[in-house]
């Protein structure tokens, strides 16, 4: 169970049998998983580029975590709910989110203002760990409604140190909430490696709160899909929460502001390159004759098209007027906000006049 975790697909692209978590996917499903990972990777690369070009303020790259995200999100039903952290771009795409919605946040024109109910994909959450409690509460709500939907909360290895995450584990356990805690252990919390955050493998944390924790090879999209599906089924059956630790690696910097050369060895990164999640699925697809060069070329072209759309979309994004800030501080009328808006209008009018 330690080491790389549950694995169905080895780095060399061969299948690994597993007694509990086998999965049977059609060729089309396999291709589609690859395609989602490839599009996510291309999208992510474009995010990095756009930041370098000054079009975005910041970009947290998901490079290396495609399998963890695409595999897990594929396990969800349409009516399930996701509570992401801030790096779940592939999960967002998997939910059908408009990628430009994410980019508006990182361009700084809004804080990420999509409607979380539209694709049942909650707002990105930057305060580490907070969303795990929201996910737990949401799951309690679903259970109260008699719904069979479930919730997946995404968070990182560093987040597990936060009190909120432990409280979420405990509330979910006590209430038997239908929530899957999906921890992407990408080995780093900015510059801090796992051993600064925990003394034991993270999946073991769950046991102490009374629910199962499993480690899955986070670079194995098949295993991520299979294990998340299993955990979601547990949730739907009323068996409560599950913790999944997807053992993966953050191949890039923490964000575009970060310089990982200050704290980690190139050799470590290199060693993970051999476990690349796309490469191993490509090997499987080719070995089993499920996809050919044409498919990969077509996928690449789709990626380029996505990147072009994103590039164009980002460049034409403009910020709303400051005045709009006052509109949604409260849902209902608020004297102080109104007063400040009025004063701001007067100020701006005078200012425009002066010029």
């Amino acid at each position, binding site marked *: 169970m330690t080491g790389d975790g549950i694995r169905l697909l080895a780095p060399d692209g061969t299948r690994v049998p597993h007694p509990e978590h086998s999965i049977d996917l059609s060729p089309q499903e396999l291709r589609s998983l690859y395609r989602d990972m490839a599009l996510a990777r291309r999208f992510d690369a474009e995010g990095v580029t756009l930041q370098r070009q000054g079009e975005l303020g910041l970009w947290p790259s998901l490079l290396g975590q495609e399998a963890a995200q695409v595999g897990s999100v594929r396990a969800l039903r349409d009516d399930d709910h996701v509570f992401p952290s801030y790096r779940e771009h592939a999960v967002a795409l998997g939910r059908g989110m408009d990628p430009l919605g994410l980019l508006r946040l990182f361009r700084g024109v*809004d*804080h*990420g*203002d*999509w*409607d*979380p*109910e539209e694709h049942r994909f*909650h*707002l990105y*959450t930057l*305060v580490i760990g*907070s969303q*795990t*409690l*929201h*996910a*737990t*509460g*949401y*799951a*309690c*709500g*679903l*259970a*109260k*409604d*008699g*719904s*069979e939907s479930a919730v997946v909360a995404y968070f990182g290895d560093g987040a597990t140190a936060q*009190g*909120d995450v432990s*409280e*979420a584990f*405990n*509330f979910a356990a*006590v*209430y*038997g*909430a239908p929530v899957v805690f999906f921890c992407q252990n990408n080995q780093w919390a900015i510059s801090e490696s796992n051993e600064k955050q925990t003394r034991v493998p993270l999946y073991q944390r769950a046991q102490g709160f009374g629910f199962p924790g499993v480690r899955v090879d986070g670079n194995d999209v098949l295993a991520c899909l299979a294990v998340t599906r299993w955990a979601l089924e547990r949730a739907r059956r*009323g068996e409560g929460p599950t913790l999944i630790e997807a053992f993966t690696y953050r191949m890039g910097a923490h964000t575009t502001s970060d310089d990982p050369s200050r704290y980690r060895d190139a050799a470590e990164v290199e060693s993970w390159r051999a476990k690349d999640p796309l490469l191993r699925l490509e090997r499987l697809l080719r070995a089993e004759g499920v996809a050919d060069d044409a498919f990969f070329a077509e996928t690449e072209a789709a990626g380029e098209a996505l990147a072009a759309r994103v590039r164009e979309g980002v460049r034409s994004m403009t910020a709303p007027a400051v005045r709009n*800030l006052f*509109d*949604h*501080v*409260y*849902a*209902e009328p*608020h*004297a*102080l*906000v109104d007063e400040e808006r009025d004063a701001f209008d007067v100020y701006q009018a005078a200012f425009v006049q002066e010029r």
Partner: protein
Amino acid sequence: MADTSATADTADTAHIADMTTTTMTATAAVERMTLVAALNASLRTALVEDPKTLLMGEDIGRLGGVFRVTDGLQKDFGEHRVMDTPLAESGIVGTAIGLALSGYRPIVEIQFDGFVFPAYDQIVTQLAKMHARSRGKVRLPVVIRIPYGGGIGAVEHHSESPEALFAHVAGLRVMSPATPSDAYWMLQEAVRSDDPVVFLEPKRRYYEKGEVDTRPGARPGPPGARVVREGADLTLVAYGPMVATCLDAAAVAAEEGHELEVVDLRSISPIDFDTVSRSVRRTGRLVVAHEAPVFFGAGAEIAARITERCFYHLEAPVLRVGGFHTPYPPSRLEDEYLPGLDRVLDAVDRALAA
């Protein structure tokens, strides 16, 4: 082990069973009752009127809360609507946010003022901001009820007045009733609001009685400030537990020939500055009283804004009377520490003399 949230179907059945019991009916009438009883009646009304309303907190179930504000509600509405939570305030508020996102309207009880701080992060960075962050797409109708203030002879952390720490934060509404009637109706208002509300209950007034008209027709509007005693010489502004103290002070001052106008703020964020300004324009003098420390307290905001608005009407600087820049003292000192009748009158005298 009992699962208080339970699986979907048992939850549903329990819920339907609850709905059919007669105890579900809130009785509407004019009655004399304590502030605690008014809050209890108001919660009952909320639970009856909207099946999406939930109560959450520590010991609010069988015990009925340490102040009995939720007395009998779990028995009548079931564990699915009146939820005892684990002992973790951040967890309570964070989970309440999630429940609100899923369509519920949680009313959270924090056991004492001094224990809200573990939840401060969830309140300030999440609850207050999510509506704005989503540009209006998300609404979080969460009420956080907090018994607050001193005067009950309690140990450390049980007598705090943290209102300024919430009022400074955009996205929250902060209110505090002073009477049983306001307790009933302002809580109704808080529950109906689609904004998060920090609802501060003056715990040392919990067992004071007043007339409460719970009939739907008696519903007043949203809580603006209210002139609770008229007077021409000086305006005395207070809220929550200090309103009664200020009314007492006004009565004493009247004997000495000074007519004080007492304004009960009721809402601390936003503040109804129009009502206060109107009063100060007439009286020319203002004293603000609260239990919370004066430094960076509500009195500062009121003094600053009213001075700005009424600069040419003020005959004396606005004076503030409140807590000192010290931790809340051991209980045997609180009578002297709290801004009581004498300290309020002292400030009034100084304002009148200026």
